[in-house]
């Protein structure tokens, strides 16, 4: 098949690379949105009052093991 001249091929090549860039950027933007929501929830949890007194039973550390990692969309 004959080679396309640069003027004709350029927009196609640019389009393909822009599609890739757009996909990655869209993915990163969605992930950033989710992380922002997580940060807001952590802020909300951080603003809760401290547990009362030293006699209060300390809450167990929250390090959810991977076994609890239920998959959500």
């Amino acid at each position, binding site marked *: 098949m004959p080679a396309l001249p640069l003027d004709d*091929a350029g927009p196609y090549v640019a389009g*393909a*690379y822009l599609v890739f860039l757009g996909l990655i950027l869209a*993915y990163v933007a969605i992930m950033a949105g*989710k992380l922002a929501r997580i940060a807001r929830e952590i802020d909300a949890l951080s603003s809760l009052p401290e547990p009362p007194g030293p006699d209060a039973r300390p809450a167990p550390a929250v390090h959810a093991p*991977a076994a609890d990692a239920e*998959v959500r969309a």
Partner: protein
Amino acid sequence: MRMFSRGLHSLSIVTAVALTGSFALVFFYAPNDADQGFIQKIFYLHVPMAIVALGGFVAGAWYAIRYLRTRDRAYDLRSYVAIHLSIILGLGVLATGSIWAKASWGHWWVWDEPTLVSFLIVFLLFCTYQPLRFSIEDPERQARYAAVFAIVGGAFVPINFLAVRLAEALTHPRVLSATGGSMPGSMRLTFLVSLVSMTLLFVTLWKYELLSKQVSAQLRTLRRRLGDDGSVPAARPS
């Protein structure tokens, strides 16, 4: 959380450098193809993306097997994220392939070509993974059914690859051949760097998404501990 975040910062930097380097090689080092000319530059994006996407489906199947053997939910999460990312890359493969096809063959899609149609079948098969998964409410059943689906779909990838090899090539060239596609050294080096950088991108995004999912899971655990209704009090204005 440390499990998925380990080395993520340095991995991100390496990925960014590798991607930039591969694009520089594509446009400033690799020669124009004698047959196709400048349009062949899409090859260095399209083919690595296809290989990594298919590899991601197989990785999803591998982690699904590990899940079924160990019942460790971390493997289920890894399988899910690998398949999710592969679907995104698969979308990129179809889009870049269509653009290349339009430029080279004059058509956006050729239904007679086994390579194209087989990839579309694998892609559409895995597109049904998420609806299937989230149509099941019980987390245990959800993970088990999704694992079985991922294994069947993952097994379909190498079978499909062999079937395409055995079929007659019409328009789409066979890239992974014994002769290496008859590429000269500079093109082969550029292709290999592109493949490595695409793999690094996949692993980096995979680890980021795993980390995000795990932090979300920890938040849900916290919410459950805070109250039976699972509600988090609204943040106070500062």
